[in-house]
């Protein structure tokens, strides 16, 4: 093979690699583009958005739901649903708020404990799903009550406290960059590392076709538990972050939290049913939502219209991400009740 052809081949391959990267990530890139566009709109109508204060409080407010949505995305990728998210976040939150002392040792240990509780709760969800063979919806509906009850046992109404230093560590700003951004980027990096092991592919295989995954030697039970445990890890981080944000514990997070997390997953572009997606788009989805709340605030939409507009934004964000949806000829791909 001559030198030129070899180079040509390599260049051609790079082109193919880039094209394939773009086509594999099209959903992800589209939701990122939606975020950038929304953010730009928001910045153009309100100067506050680009100030350090504005930006850091935006990131801080959205980070809890973002972390939870990232975890939820992993479960969804594996073909499941997790209704226990708010309860696990609340459980971690009340443990932190009741246990953490103002010493760095305590902060470290309680943080580890918090994330450990998240991982354990998630893993237990996973173990229950694999060992019982029940749909994850019903298992996590049950554990939603169990973890929720446990949170109430730890703290029966909002209270507790979190040391200032710890709150500052997570929600503060260093050199103009909110620490939360670093935390979120850290999670992305962690996921990038994980996706270079076979775990990512195994999770997607599990969500895509469970029987096929099993037949190919994918450790199905282990992967399922791992997916729920990773989700639990993210919930643990969300609980920690919530503790820092609120410097206290709230045993009852309210139904809106779950809905926000689910909406963030969807807006991020991860489709229910499994086999596709990435937790990073859960992060993006959450910030798309929080940016749109911010836009609605800035334009001083009447408060009742907020609800209507939120609904409209959900629809628009999903349509914009994949405009091809509108073009699909009706007979080409028959629709089921799940849509999509």
């Amino acid at each position: 093979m001559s030198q030129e052809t070899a180079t040509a081949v390599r260049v051609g391959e790079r082109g193919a690699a880039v094209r394939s990267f773009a086509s594999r990530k099209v959903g992800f890139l589209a939701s990122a583009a939606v975020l950038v566009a929304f953010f730009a709109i928001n910045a153009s109508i309100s100067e506050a958005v680009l100030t350090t204060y504005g930006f850091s409080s935006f990131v801080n407010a959205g980070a809890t739901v973002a972390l939870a949505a990232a975890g939820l995305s992993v479960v969804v990728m594996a073909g499941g649903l997790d209704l226990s998210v708010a309860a696990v976040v609340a459980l971690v939150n009340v443990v932190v708020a009741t246990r953490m002392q103002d010493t760095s040792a305590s902060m470290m240990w309680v943080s580890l404990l918090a994330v450990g509780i998240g991982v354990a709760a998630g893993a237990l969800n996973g173990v229950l799903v694999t060992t019982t063979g029940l749909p994850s919806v019903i298992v996590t509906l049950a554990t939603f009550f169990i973890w929720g009850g446990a949170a109430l046992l730890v703290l029966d109404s909002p209270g507790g406290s979190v040391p200032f230093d710890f709150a500052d560590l997570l929600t503060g700003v260093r050199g103009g960059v909110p620490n939360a951004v670093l935390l979120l980027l850290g999670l992305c990096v962690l996921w990038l590392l994980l996706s270079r092991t076979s775990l990512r592919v195994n999770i997607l295989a599990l969500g895509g076709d469970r029987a096929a995954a099993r037949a190919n030697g994918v450790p199905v039970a282990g992967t399922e538990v791992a997916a729920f445990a990773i989700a639990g890890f993210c919930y643990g981080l969300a609980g920690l972050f919530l503790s820092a944000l609120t410097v206290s514990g709230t045993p009852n997070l309210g139904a809106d939290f779950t809905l926000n997390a689910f909406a963030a997953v969807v807006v991020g572009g991860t489709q229910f049913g499994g086999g596709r997606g990435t937790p990073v788009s859960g992060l993006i989805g959450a910030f798309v939502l929080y940016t749109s709340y911010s836009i609605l605030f800035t334009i001083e939409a009447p408060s009742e219209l907020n609800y209507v507009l939120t609904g409209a934004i959900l629809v628009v964000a999903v349509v914009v991400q994949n405009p091809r949806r509108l073009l699909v000829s009706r007979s080409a791909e028959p629709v089921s009740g799940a849509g999509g």
Partner: protein
Amino acid sequence: GDDKPGSGQGGGGDDGKFKIALNLSTTNNTYQTQARNLIEAAAKTPPYDEKVELRVDVAGVDVTKQIQMINNEVAAGVDAIVLYPVSPTGLNPAIEKACKAGVVVVAWDSNVTAPCAYNVYPDLEQFGYTGAKWLVDQMGGKGELIVIRGIEGVPADTFEYEGVLKAIEGTDVEIVAEPEGEWAAATIKTTFAQAYAAHPEADAVWGATGCIQVHEIVKDKEIFCSGGMSKDEMMLMAPEDVGGGGVTTNVAVPAPPWDGELAFFIAMDVLEGADIPKTTLLPTPLVTAEDVKVGTNPAEGANLFVGDDIPPDFFPFWSPLVEQGLEAALHGTPDKISDRKPCSEVEGCVQK
């Protein structure tokens, strides 16, 4: 700017008005709606119409969203936030940041623990105690009590329950069941019916609301009930000649939706330089069947408003501490019926 609070020079807005944000958690109930209407009406009534630019924001029942909302309001340059908090503690960092930025924060109905914030709220433990104490007296200090709970983990429920426990302490009254009612008629009806079916000997029921359902279910005997004070519960206690139920074994303890209006006034007073204590505790008087008074002007003592346009879960709402009347509560249109008095002149009002 630094000179905003206490400058007494009118607001920082372009037109010299104070910008005030009413930050609600939800508009899904008559209670918050009624409070909101009263605040909107007050803001439109002279002299405030010249001084105030009011915006209303609804955060939803998610603490992170309300935090974002507070931050946004601060960034938008408001002078004060009149806040219905979803959490007594979770908003503290956001509130403290707001205070640091010179924003006056007044929380109403439920308190927040941030030291820089002003709080206006009824003493909920007292609320629980007042009703339960009456029940204990009626029962002669012994017997079975069913307590209808609200939603677990929500502070109001915890405080009220503690008040109830305090009232039965040292008596022979026993709590036999605690059905969870979620403050919703349908749920109360189901869960109370089940609790009562298991404890048909129960002598009395305490609930933040729910006496209507209690009397719907307990038909065969007289049962004592202490509940809330919405229109329909008052109707139950009202004499039959005004279309009421004539039930005399009931008492009500009002939850006052006018505390929002008071919070608004406190915010204005602080902005105009008044020195006001951080906490205002509101009275929670007991209302018996004899106290029910039909009418249209609350300033004249009316506490039961009949009429088709009055929602069933509408609350009697007036206090000498505030100013607005029925039209204001129903539609948010100005309806000034009195001049407010300072807390020190009103019985049961405590400022500290």
